[in-house]
């Protein structure tokens, strides 16, 4: 976490400033969840897992089209982070792997699944699809298909929080691939200059599509990416929901105190391919299996709940309820009608001219 000295031309400033003097966010502690809180995290993560498995199945059945990027493996990130937000004031924006973030908000799985099948009842009336989902009501601003675009947009959301002095913080998620896009750094610079309330959340799942982080990033410790803009960073075990929650508590303290943006790198892993059509030849099955066996966020929470005295029966009951919710969402998404043909022409412009 120590800052590395700024690399400035030797002639200009031979000695970089002694960085340790600069204030840093505190070292996060693992969150001490009550049994009820951890049960809720478990429930949300399991809901995302089962929802995504079902989405994958519906894709295989031909009911979901286009691109479909599943969140399986990464559940602890969205659940841990979003559990700490103030839903009345804080905003969230992400890229195209967005189903989990919406579910973590408690948005009705039926509306999300119906968007995936392209139906009128979907959250974007069937016009957006998997990559383009939004819920302004929940301050969830999408759902963006162009790698990195959401980072600048999120900085704009943070600009609004500061401008209106509404006390809100923006959580802008992006992946290790997007972390190399230029606009990310243009945004970080402005965010620090203007002390905008934004958390840059890098969901580092190790692979930008088929390219491992080490093959695309000269600095692969992505939490350091803000340092040259004086944006501090923290690296977090993204497979442990309580570590994630603990880390964002510190991050929020920093940002809410008006100290400007912060970078959080969540080390996570996606079990499935980049999208449904990814052959995933760039990693071994053993690697994927080892992550599932040793680091699964749901298994992890389950063991901890059992240690807290939650019976296997109680967990099975939750699992069963979730299967029911997901089955109903899938059913709803299949049965709902397609959009009215007139919808083709609606929402292009707001006004009439």
């Amino acid at each position, binding site marked *: 976490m120590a800052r590395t000295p700024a690399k400035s031309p030797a002639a200009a400033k031979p000695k970089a400033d002694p960085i340790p003097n600069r204030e840093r966010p505190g070292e996060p502690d693992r969150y001490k969840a009550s049994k009820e809180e951890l049960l809720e995290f478990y429930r949300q993560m399991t809901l995302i*897992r089962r929802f995504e*498995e*079902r989405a*994958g*199945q*519906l894709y*295989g*059945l*031909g009911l*979901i*089209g*286009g*691109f479909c990027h599943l969140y*399986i493996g990464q559940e602890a990130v969205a659940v841990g982070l979003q559990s700490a937000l103030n839903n009345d004031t804080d905003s969230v924006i992400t890229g195209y792997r967005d189903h989990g973030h919406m579910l973590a908000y408690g948005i009705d799985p039926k509306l999300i699944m119906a*968007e995936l099948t*392209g*139906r*009128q009842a979907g959250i974007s009336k*069937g*016009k*957006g*699809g998997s*990559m*383009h989902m939004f819920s302004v009501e929940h301050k969830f601003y999408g759902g963006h*298909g*162009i*790698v*990195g675009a959401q980072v600048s947009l999120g900085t704009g959301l943070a600009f609004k929080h500061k401008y209106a002095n509404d006390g809100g913080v923006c959580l802008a998620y992006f992946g290790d*691939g*997007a972390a190399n*896009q*230029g606009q990310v750094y243009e945004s970080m610079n402005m965010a620090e200059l203007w002390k905008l309330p934004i958390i840059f959340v890098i969901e580092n799942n190790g692979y*930008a*599509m*088929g*390219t491992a982080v080490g*093959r*695309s*990033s000269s600095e692969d410790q992505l939490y350091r990416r803000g340092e040259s803009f004086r944006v501090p960073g923290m690296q977090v075990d993204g497979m442990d929901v309580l570590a994630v929650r603990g880390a964002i508590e510190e991050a929020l303290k920093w940002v809410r105190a008006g100290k400007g943006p912060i970078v959080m790198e969540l080390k996570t892993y996606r*079990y499935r*391919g980049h999208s449904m*059509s*990814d*052959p*995933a030849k*760039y990693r071994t*099955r053993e690697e994927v299996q080892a992550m599932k066996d040793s680091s699964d966020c749901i298994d992890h929470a389950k063991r901890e709940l059992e240690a807290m005295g939650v019976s296997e029966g109680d967990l099975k009951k939750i699992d*069963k309820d979730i*299967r*029911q919710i997901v*089955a109903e969402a*899938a059913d709803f998404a*299949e049965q709902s009608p*397609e*959009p009215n*043909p007139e*919808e*083709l*022409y609606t929402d*292009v412009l707001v006004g009439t001219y």
Partner: protein
Amino acid sequence: MAIELKMPALSPTMEEGTLAKWLVKEGDAVKSGDILAEIETDKATMEFEAVDEGTIAQILVPEGTDGVKVGAPIAMLAAEGEDASAAKPAPKAEEPKEEAPKEEAKPAVPDATTPHQMETAARQLVADVAAAEKAGVDARDPEIPEGTEMVKTTVREALRDAMAEEMRADDRVFVMGEEVAQYQGAYKVTQGLLDEFGDRRVIDTPITEYGFAGVGTGAAMAGLRPIVEFMTFNFAMQAIDHIINSAAKTNYMSGGQMRAPIVFRGPNGAAARVGAQHSQNYGPWYASVPGLIVIAPYSAADAKGLLKAAIRSEDPVVFLENELLYGQSFPVPKLDDFVLPIGKARIAKEGKDVTLVSYSIGVGVALEAAVKLAEEGIDAEVIDLRTLRPLDTETVLKSLAKTNRLVVVEEGWPTCSIASEISAVVMEQGFDDLDAPVLRVTNVDVPLPYAANLEKLALIKADDVVTAAKKVCYKA
């Protein structure tokens, strides 16, 4: 309570695949997320995962089986607590319609639907291309010498071959882009190039379009011959500044001293259900920029001959491919060095009653419309523009002088389109030849919707071309 596991569709257009490998055997207990099998198509290998928990009761399709239809039962899963031996297999593994014994469907699994192909208007576009090719209406290029052997080649292979040939011939040529090397191309267009040319010349970039478009342009200014692949041209919008401000204007601004011989290539236009941000035709955008060459081929032969010409050109070229055409096969001449001229349209089908002008996948739609029009006694001429800038107005005007009627078919928005440009050119230079106003058949003027039914309404259709052609012939 047995659950039938069915052959899934791994991509929107998949009809059948190979069951390459089973990773479980009969009697194995499986749970959600376990990988059961590997399935292959011509494009990809995919893992087939379990969604439900249970025990593999029977494997119905042995590994190594080719041509397994989407929806065919491939195994039986006995649900939790059920005796695996009690799970009866479906009577026939080949027929997806056969109902397996599902006496008491598990309430949590209501969707025992048979997999079917995803609904998408893209399939109709592809079908038009395939039908036109099958009907043999597409005339052969006069550039190809009489008697040349023709080899059925996909557009994907033709593009790869063009790059490989030019790379063999000229060490200055290299390819860079996202997933072009180790992954063999996001759409497999660069397949095999890394193996042959190594990582000095086939270069994986980070996801940094603006950066690598600039790096490529700089390398071109310094004398190399870069081919920059965009995963799709939608992502090239991140890089459009370098394409236009850096590459297109260099030669002019330097008074002819400094050139930018670079090819920007990748898929353009609508694909299957990928929604508004991934479905745009940039033909008209780039074609409006002086200093650029813009090519948008339809057939595999044109893709090959024109990409080779583009790589050799001293000017920056925007080379617009089409994802839906990648898998389509066309005859390609078997010649050592097949290069086509830039800026020349091709008469894809001769006719005398009406001229249909198009480019890229729109040519397939226009050819299919020509087949339908022939059934109604209208003999349509189809022109494939191939190059959008510079536009071969001569070929268009010559055809108009013959037919006196013209319809432009464009898979893209109508406003400020290639169709608009053709209309203007025809009015300015061919006014006296016109017996009817020029009509435009284009996509609907909205961002492309995701929903299957709306997508169908938004994209061009051969029937709309037929209607327009009849209208200009006053036979509506």
